[in-house]
């Protein structure tokens, strides 16, 4: 079909279908249900034309066969057991058993059905077509009663969902093993189970003009800063987009600095981590359909911390954190430092090492910059392949990656052994901390490599300075990104590179502006019994 034909046919469509889906949904606004059930069904059937998954089930009321009833629900979203047992069976068969002899008129029908007919724990009434359509699409079951312009919405949702499993992106050795799933309500329930307090508020929004995705923000009232809560709400409400398929959409639409390579919104799939964030005064953003939950405001140091840091004993944790910070630093600068030293400042190496590196590099045809750049690229390709490849062929890739590319590249004289060591160590280091921060580190690594390849250690220093200046100016929902390091909040420094024991972390972090200043009482340090029993 030629383009003009498509357009011609398009013109023939009924007027309401011509509008975009958004305008179509808006056109339902203000439209009310009719008293005549036939009209209502016809109306809904036009709306759900060609939607094979919408089920219309018409039947009559057992008490009075004059009264027609209709159930409308989405196949797969409504809990079929509940719909057939608690609604249909009740109305079509069992009602007479409950009140034998009594005749219900058309006018009484709605009240009676609500009070005695339905065995559903959550019902709602509406007379708006738009709400009915929304309810059906969200998985609720709508009951229409003849002679009434009111529909009953039964909350009998039930669909196939993934079971709660181990967190895959943030594995832990010690700590809760559950992770969020794709269903919003399951996710909020996981959070509610961690914080059993009425001050845990979960406010719902609907975002997405076509998808009407459920979005919820959670915070602890009295702990989180009201100004930030308001800011989060405003930023979410100003989103006008067709669909939200993942929290990533929201993240990009509410960021403070969209052009920064650094993530200013944290995300996690662990309920315990979200709970910890809320307790420090942050705000969580849930989106239906994704196990990743956003937390704001977020600081740079968060990305270098793991939730396990707070569960393992503090001495060990502090040591591990120091290692992690060093690894993060290495993942950013090690290749560029290697390039700078090998191509400009050989004298920095101790003599024995210098000779060894020089001997390795003698047979390599390329300049160090090109060599490292190439190997980093190879590593990035391997990493990307590792994520994308179908599981069964993982073995093949690791053999090709490790043996062919690594070992043979050295034997063939393409790269020096030292380069492989540097690239491999850098690659491993970048996996020691939060994934989204490591992405930005990896990106900036290439930028630094170019600088140190051209200007040596001077270029490297300048590059790091540029990154630092950028970081110093970053903010996440008004909170300086580098706090508590700069601007310095001294009492917060006990939870940055090291972690103080729990009994010493009396104050909540001051870098997140909240209201709950103290998170525990003083004098929590364990003591031996006083009278030496």
């Amino acid at each position, binding site marked *: 079909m030629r383009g003009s034909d498509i357009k011609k046919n398009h013109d023939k469509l009924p007027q309401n279908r011509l509008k975009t889906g958004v305008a179509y949904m808006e056109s339902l606004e203000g439209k009310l249900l009719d008293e005549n059930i036939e009209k209502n069904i016809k109306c809904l059937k036009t709306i759900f034309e060609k939607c094979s998954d919408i089920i219309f089930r018409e039947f009559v009321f057992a008490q009075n066969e004059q009264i027609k009833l209709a159930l409308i629900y989405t196949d797969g979203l409504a809990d079929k057991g509940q719909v057939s047992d608690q609604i249909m069976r009740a109305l079509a068969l069992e009602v007479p058993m409950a009140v034998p002899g009594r005749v219900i008129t058309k006018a009484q029908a709605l009240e009676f059905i609500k009070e005695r007919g339905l065995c559903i724990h959550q019902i709602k009434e509406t007379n708006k077509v738009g709400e009915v359509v929304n309810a059906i699409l969200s998985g609720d079951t709508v009951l229409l009663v003849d002679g009434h312009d009111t529909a009953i919405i039964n909350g009998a949702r039930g669909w196939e969902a993934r079971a709660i499993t181990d967190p895959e992106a943030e594995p832990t050795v010690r700590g809760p093993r559950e992770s969020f799933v794709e269903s919003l309500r399951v996710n909020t329930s996981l959070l509610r189970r961690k914080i059993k307090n009425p001050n845990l508020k979960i406010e719902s929004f609907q975002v997405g003009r076509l998808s009407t995705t459920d979005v919820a923000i959670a915070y602890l009232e009295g702990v989180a800063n009201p100004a930030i809560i308001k800011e989060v709400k405003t930023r979410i409400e100003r989103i006008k987009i067709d669909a939200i398929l993942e929290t990533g959409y929201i993240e990009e639409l509410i960021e403070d600095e969209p052009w920064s390579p650094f993530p200013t919104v944290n995300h996690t799939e662990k309920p315990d981590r979200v709970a910890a964030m809320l307790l420090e005064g942050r705000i969580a953003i849930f989106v239906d359909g994704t196990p990743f939950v956003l937390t704001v405001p977020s600081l740079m140091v968060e990305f270098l911390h793991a939730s396990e840091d707070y569960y393992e004993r503090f001495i060990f944790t502090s040591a591990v954190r120091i290692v992690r910070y060093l690894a993060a630093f290495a993942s950013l600068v090690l290749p560029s430092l290697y390039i700078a030293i090998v191509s400009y*400042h050989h004298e920095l190496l101790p003599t024995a090492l210098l000779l060894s590196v020089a001997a390795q590099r003698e047979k390599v045809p390329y300049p160090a910059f090109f060599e490292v750049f190439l190997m980093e690229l190879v590593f990035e390709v391997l990493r990307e392949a590792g994520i994308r490849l179908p599981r069964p062929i993982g073995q093949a890739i690791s053999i090709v990656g490790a043996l062919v590319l690594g070992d043979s590249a050295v034997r063939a004289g393409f790269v020096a052994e030292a380069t492989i060591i540097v690239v491999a160590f850098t690659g491993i280091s970048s996996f020691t901390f939060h994934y989204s921060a490591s992405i930005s580190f990896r990106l900036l690594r290439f930028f630094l490599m170019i600088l140190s390849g051209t200007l040596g250690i001077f270029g490297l220093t*300048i590059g790091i300075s540029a990154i630092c200046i950028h970081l110093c*100016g970053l903010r996440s929902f008004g909170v300086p990104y580098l706090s508590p390091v700069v601007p310095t909040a001294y009492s917060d420094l006990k939870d940055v590179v090291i972690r103080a024991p729990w009994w010493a972390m009396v104050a909540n972090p001051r870098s997140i502006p909240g209201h709950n200043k103290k998170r525990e009482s003083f004098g929590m340090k364990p003591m031996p019994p006083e009278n030496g029993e």
Partner: protein
Amino acid sequence: MKEEEKLSSVQVFFLALNFFLASAFILMPSAVAATAGRDGWAAILIAAGAGILLSKLYAALCIRFSGRTIILFAQDIAGEIPGKIMGLLFAWFALHLGALVLRNFGDFMVISLMPCTPLIVFNSVIMLIAAMAVYRGLEVLCRFNLMLMPVILVSMAVIIIFCFTIPNFDAAKLLPLFENGFSRVLKTSLIPMTFPFGEGVLFLMIFPNMSNSGDAKKIMAGAIIASAMIIASITAETVAVFGSNAKNFVYSTHSMIRCIELAEIFERTDTLTIVIWILSGLIKISVCLYAFVKGCTQLFALKDYRPIVIPSGIIMTALSILVYENVIEQTEFASKIWPFYSLVFELLLPLMLITLDSVKKVF
């Protein structure tokens, strides 16, 4: 909102400390050794005393006209036209100083790091980063400085300690004290007084942004004392290592660090110290650029200083290439002309303003 950037006293203290240390750490030992010989360290300590007096003058001005920079209160005191001329002079000083520091920097890079790379490459790259910092605002500059400070101070401490291990090190080379008379030391102290301590006059552009400007005197005095101790000890060490030869090096600190050999790992590490110097010099240039840009903004009553940051940076870079022909000329200028030239801005201008103001108050 951007105009109300408030700085804490700690931030300004470290900014000043870094400002004083930046080029002096590497240039001062040779500069004072030329005339004061082995007593250079004493000249620096004397200069620190004078510097504290100078900073008292600046702090007095700052407290008297709290919340206003020198550009603004000069117009209040001397009237609009003479005040504007003074402001223009002050802005020129910031520009010139920035260009000189930038030039020192570039020269140091070319001589000690990459002899074949043209000077303009270093100067423009450094200026680019300084402009970036200034563009982001004073608060960001202070935070950046605070981030660097631990690195810089620890490295300087390590350098000072490790220099004791140099085989040539002999504290006896510092003796006899004041061999050529005390007056020579006194005369020499003019050099460190005007560079770096007197250069603190640029902080008159920063004090109004402090949340507690009453601290200005303490802060400047503290920064001068701390930086003087560091510079004096490194100066004494160069003499202890090189003896009377110390004055023959252009960058004697750098040459001394090259002599450190420790445990076969810590040797020939002079390149790493360049990193420190780049970092702290970057701050000094940024402060100069900020003072110039902010000065111009207030002088010509512009709304925002951001649009003129890049043009000013280009002017400063161009000036830094033009000021000298070579390093020898720079050394001559720094020791013979700079002390007297800079006193106009560092002493005369503020002194004139405060006197005028006091006289006006009396009548």
